[in-house]
């Protein structure tokens, strides 16, 4: 049985084309995926991300537990409301999931994990807590909804849609969140996202989701589906779990080495394996320079240093060209020309360092 978010009826009423994503019935677009993409880059769009799961970790020693459970170091979270991006690893260094962790109070941390991996993550963390921190309570918050409002006008339009929220959230820096009073009651507002644009992600009681969505719509925020979300995150050079990395891939082979804290002396799950990781694989961006198709996941990449494979690929509406993320031999460098096989046809692509686009600006040539 497919799961539905509290906004499912709203999507259907808006004529969205629906698809299965992570076990949820989700909108892929409401008419034109490309128009929705541009709306986020140039103005403001919103995504129903209620399929993602909030997991609260409460109790004494929550920080100690997460210091061991996550590959990034929660000691970087010193101010309440601050968020950190991290991988959740297996003992062998494979990526179980990527997530955001918020420090709310010393006895309350909040994870936001992917839809398709949520049950697995919770089971994994519970098993880890049994031995290391049995006093902790892990709660999957199925009572909450999440809406991502993204784009250069996203913050202003959210303040217009939900009067009273500006006071609490105007001074928020990126990767920080705060509880804010709104006409819908207290909602959590974080300056985070998955598009490479400024904006907010809001967390609110599920029964308030429709009212928030309608208010944002009335303020001129355009509903956008998972299709635009995918091309936006690809342009922003952000990994998608299950596509760019999974349990068989080390964070170093997915461009996520910067999120792994090997500098501190703390131990964490997967550390021993990552210290031994040969780092033989690099993770790069590609821009198709020949015409003849569109880059997609799992196309073979031929380089002067050996073969690799695309992990994500699509058409970039901002560049007007096809782009991809690819796992290639570590020696492959930005500026190199490589060959991608599309339907067995060899086509030239240029290697770049992601992101391709940020804050509406093209960063690659």
């Amino acid at each position, binding site marked *: 049985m497919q799961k539905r978010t509290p906004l499912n009826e709203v999507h259907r009423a808006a004529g969205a*084309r629906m698809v299965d994503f992570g076990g949820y019935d989700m909108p*892929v*677009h409401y008419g*034109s*995926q*490309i128009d929705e993409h541009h709306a986020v880059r140039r103005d403001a769009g919103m995504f129903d991300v209620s399929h993602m799961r909030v997991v609260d970790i409460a109790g004494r020693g929550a920080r100690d537990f997460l210091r061991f459970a996550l590959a990034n170091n929660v000691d970087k979270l010193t101010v309440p409301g601050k968020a950190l991006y991290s991988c959740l690893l297996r003992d062998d260094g494979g990526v179980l999931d990527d997530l955001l962790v918020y420090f709310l109070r010393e006895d309350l941390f909040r994870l936001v994990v992917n839809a398709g991996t949520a049950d697995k993550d919770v089971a994994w963390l519970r098993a880890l807590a049994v031995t290391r921190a049995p006093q902790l309570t892990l709660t999957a918050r199925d009572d909450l909804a999440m809406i991502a409002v993204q784009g250069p006008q996203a913050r202003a339009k959210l303040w217009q849609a939900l009067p009273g929220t500006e006071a609490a959230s105007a001074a928020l820096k990126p990767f920080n969140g705060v509880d804010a009073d709104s006409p819908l009651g207290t909602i959590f507002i974080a300056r985070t996202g998955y598009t490479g644009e400024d904006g907010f992600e809001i967390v609110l009681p599920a029964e308030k989701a429709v009212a928030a969505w309608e208010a944002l719509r009335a303020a001129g925020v355009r509903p956008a589906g998972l*299709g635009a979300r995918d*091309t936006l995150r690809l342009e922003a050079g952000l990994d998608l779990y299950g596509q760019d990395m999974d349990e068989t891939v080390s964070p170093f082979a997915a461009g996520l080495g910067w999120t792994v804290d090997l500098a501190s002396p703390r131990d964490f799950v997967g550390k021993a394996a990552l210290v031994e990781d040969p780092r033989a694989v690099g993770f790069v961006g590609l821009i198709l320079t020949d*015409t*003849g*198709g*569109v880059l*997609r996941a799992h196309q073979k990449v031929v380089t002067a240093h050996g073969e690799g494979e695309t992990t994500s690929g*699509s*058409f970039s*509406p901002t560049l007007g060209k*096809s782009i991809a993320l690819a796992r290639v031999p570590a020696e492959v460098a930005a500026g190199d020309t490589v060959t991608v096989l599309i*339907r067995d046809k060899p086509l030239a692509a240029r290697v770049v360092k992601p992101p391709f686009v940020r804050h509406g600006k093209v960063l690659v040539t």
Partner: protein
Amino acid sequence: MNVPAQLKYVDTHEWLRAEADGTITVGITDHAQEALGDLVFVELPAVGRKLAVGEACAIVESVKAASDVYAPIAGEVVAVNEAVPAAPESLNTKPYEAWLFRVRPADPKALDGLLDAAAYEKLIG
């Protein structure tokens, strides 16, 4: 969904139109373009290519995915619409004007027995 009455259709979502010179023009239906989403790449067959029924002979790629276009009838490609690869989005905005290729049919009665608009509408219903 737009399904013009004067055209013929096949269940792989191509439309066909008989021309005065005996050739047959082929494109993809409104239903097909809607299902594919925003189109960004089109590859057409070479003029002169001999097509068998059901043969994959063109490629249309949307932002989402690549799809084959199948030859709805047998025959030789006598013309292709180069304007479409230059502007793939025309398949989304005017699928019945943005034709893909023109075939001289091996069998002059090739259109007989294909779906009419009513039957195609029922199929996609």
